[in-house]
């Protein structure tokens, strides 16, 4: 195992930094149901980290623990070398963690541009009155943030739907808009909950390309949950495998692919 504090270089020449987030013995229960049982793993800076597992394995719960939406009953979350106290989701966002959702959670009636602008709220501080009359600081802030948003729009190639209400967009594009909103927040860690669910092959290829580009261009650390094995194995640097709330494998895609427990639990026999 590599030293957690030491950066290393991957085969394709990317530099992966030291551990930025660490889960230590996380256990999460809903009443009597144990969703996550004593799981530990880490996320390194700049890597693409996948969490996989069959339906009901506790993947989304895990992501919700990372995003601070759930507070585990046992265990600790360490972020940037400090133990993280239980936080409100907006406080987690302030720490530089952004996410997308498995079921798209955009403002359907608003335009793409406005939706992506909401990703910048963390960077805006003008008061309610100033915002309402749109003078001085509010105006200046909007101009600055609009520029950042436009860069994201350009990056994800959604210029043509800039002014389109989200409700009119097809599914694949909505997913991309959601990614845009998360990116607009300039996160240091990006959490993606099933970014490819329900997409056709072409849309998946596009989305994979964007995920790689985000990682490559901005150095964003990415943690993602995904069902499509091909996508996971191609994209990720390291993979955590979960089954029935337990961790049954952790390592590079090749290591995971060879792990007998993983083959039995997930790749070999299906539970669903």
């Amino acid at each position, binding site marked *: 195992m590599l030293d957690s504090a030491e950066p290393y270089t991957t085969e*394709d*020449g*990317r530099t992966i930094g030291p551990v930025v987030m660490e889960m230590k013995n996380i256990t999460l229960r809903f009443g009597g149901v144990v969703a996550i049982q004593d799981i530990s793993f880490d996320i390194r800076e700049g890597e693409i980290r996948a969490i996989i597992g069959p339906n009901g394995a506790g993947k989304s719960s895990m992501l919700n623990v990372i995003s601070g939406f759930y507070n585990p009953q046992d265990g600790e979350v360490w972020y940037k070398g400090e133990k993280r106290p239980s936080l409100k989701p907006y406080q987690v966002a302030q720490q530089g963690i952004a996410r997308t959702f498995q079921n798209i959670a955009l403002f359907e009636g608003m335009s793409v*541009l406005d939706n992506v602008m909401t990703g910048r709220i963390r960077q805006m501080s003008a008061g309610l009155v100033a915002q309402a009359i749109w003078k001085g600081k509010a105006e200046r802030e909007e101009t600055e943030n*609009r*520029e950042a948003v*436009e*860069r994201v*729009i*350009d*990056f994800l*190639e959604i*210029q*043509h739907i*800039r*002014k389109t209400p989200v409700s009119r967009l097809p599914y694949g594009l909505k997913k991309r808009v959601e990614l845009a909103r998360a990116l607009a927040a300039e996160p240091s860690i990006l959490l993606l909950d099933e970014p490819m669910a329900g997409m056709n092959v072409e849309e998946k290829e596009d989305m994979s390309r964007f995920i790689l*580009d985000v990682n*490559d*261009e901005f150095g964003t650390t990415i943690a993602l949950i995904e069902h499509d094995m091909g996508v996971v194995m191609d994209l990720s640097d390291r993979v955590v495998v979960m089954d029935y709330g337990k961790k049954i494998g952790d390592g590079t895609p090749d290591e995971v692919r060879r792990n007998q427990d993983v083959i039995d639990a997930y790749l070999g026999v299906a539970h669903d």
Partner: protein
Amino acid sequence: MAKPIEAMDGLGSVPALLQRNALQFANRPAYREKEYGIWQSWTWAETEKEIEALALGLINLGVKEGDFISVIGRNRPYFYWSIVAAQSVGAIPVPLYQDAAADELAYVMDHCGARFAIVEDQEQVDKVIEIQDQLTEFEHMIYIDPRGLRKYDHAKLHQYDHIQDDGRATHGENISELRARREKLNYDSICVMLYTSGTTGKPKGVVLSNRNIIEASKSSSEFDNLRLTEEVLAYLPMAWVGDFIFSIGQAYWCGFCVNCPESAETMQTDLREIGPTYYFAPPRVFETQLTSVMIRMEDAGRMKKRLFDHYMAHARKVGGDILDGKPVSAMDRLKYGLGNLFVYGPLKNTLGLSRVRVGYTAGEAIGPEIFSFYRSLGINLKQLYGQTEASVFITLQPDGEVRADTVGVPAPGVEIRIAEGGEVFYRSPGTFEYYYKNEESTKSTKDPDGWVATGDAGYFDEETGQLRIIDRAKDVGKMAGGELYAPKYVENKLKFFPNILEAVVFGNGREECTAFINIDLTAVGNWAERNNIGYASYQELAGHPQVLETIREHVETVNRSLAGDPMLGGCQVHRFLVLHKELDADDGEMTRTRKVRRNVISEKFAELLTALYDGSDEIFTKTEVTYEDGRKGSISATLKIVDAAAVPVETQRVAAE
């Protein structure tokens, strides 16, 4: 041959025009591009600085006079600057189609022996790297968008900005070299090399001199009174001669502003925002726009629809005459004015055509209905006829003398003669120098007196004195019965129906004509939606009995109209089938400019062609298709063959009486 025309006031090259514009029109906008949601603009003075920095960078990189530089990308100011920078250092720019497949690029880049390439992004970089081994003389590549390219080996790969930075840094050492090279340029030096689309065989490199480009730009600008204040939207492929003339030739001659859209998908929005005053579009663009207007009107409320129908009927009646300056009663004018307030004005605004003073269409025949629709709205849409070898202009329609079925009078300085077989020949200052490395083709196309064979058959219309083109000269043939056979003429008539996207007519030397037809998925799909007809794929819709019935009606309408034509009555389509796939340039069935490759199609679909003539009712077929990324797959289908009624030709009867 007549004595060659010499340049005026030392304006013998595009870089010289740039110098003039940077002085005379220093603070006028030269380029705009929408980026990050905002129109960014550059004045002529700024443009000159940008181009100079790039040119110095190119010298620094080792570009020599006479080198060929490929330019591959969509319309962006950077690429226009690249072209002029290449010219400034004495190199020859070769703009190429950015959607060309790797092997197509390999052919042309190897043919011209390009030492350098300036490309847009990772996609193009990958493509050139893939073919690099086949290019013996290729050395350096410059890209504009660095995204995804950071990890590439940068030994021979450079970022555009860095080349400009190097240029600025080496200003002191290289500026005198740049000036010297720029001053050597004159009317005889090569301005650009453009590859023809290659309807038949391999593409040919057409070498155009500064004389060709500047003279053609100058005389056409005068013809239409183009001014400094024009706005154009540059959205057509840069490898196409038209874009070169409009966005470089005429823009530099007149000093007007070239606007580049944000991306291909936003073109319509950008068009609206810019509101060009001078606009060119191939017929297909006008067709698509009209189709989308009509589809949206179908979905509009009843009140709006009635208003639209009422005033459009009035526009059809008098709109064209008002535009042509013919007498129209005061009452009709008043009503037209109201229509303008309620319908035409807002519609033109939506289309982005409110400010168009001069509009052109060319490349293919345009449907009379489509043409008159735009004209009746008060848009001065005209036709021109041209080709790469002529630096575009052969004929142009003057204001007020516009018709759908002719292409105009000879452009200023152009002489035209019709050969015995009907082929059109021309001679003009814009006539190309030669085909690069292809003396044989040069000789067979351009005779020692400077006359060029267009390859098109046509005649001068007696009534208007304008040229009428009927078909490619080599495609014109005879039916078995001796009647004239002109497939494209028939195909165009078929394509005028919104439901028909493409048609390919066969029948040379045979008893009767037959056709392959492609339906237009937008139009037919919308019809299916309104009539609750479900379909899962293009193929299924194309084979739907009601669709076939509709197409049959269209074919029969065309047959009736052909029957009234004295020359082409024999070309009526007796049997046809609707193809199971769209004809596509990726499959080699069309050129990149979307002209059908008749021979390729008749070979590829030989069994279908046989079935059209052997009397069978249906045929099973399997076709290989190429996806955008180069992978191959196949689709199979059973196609119905439909008979269409032909009409006895009237004129033969008249002749007999």
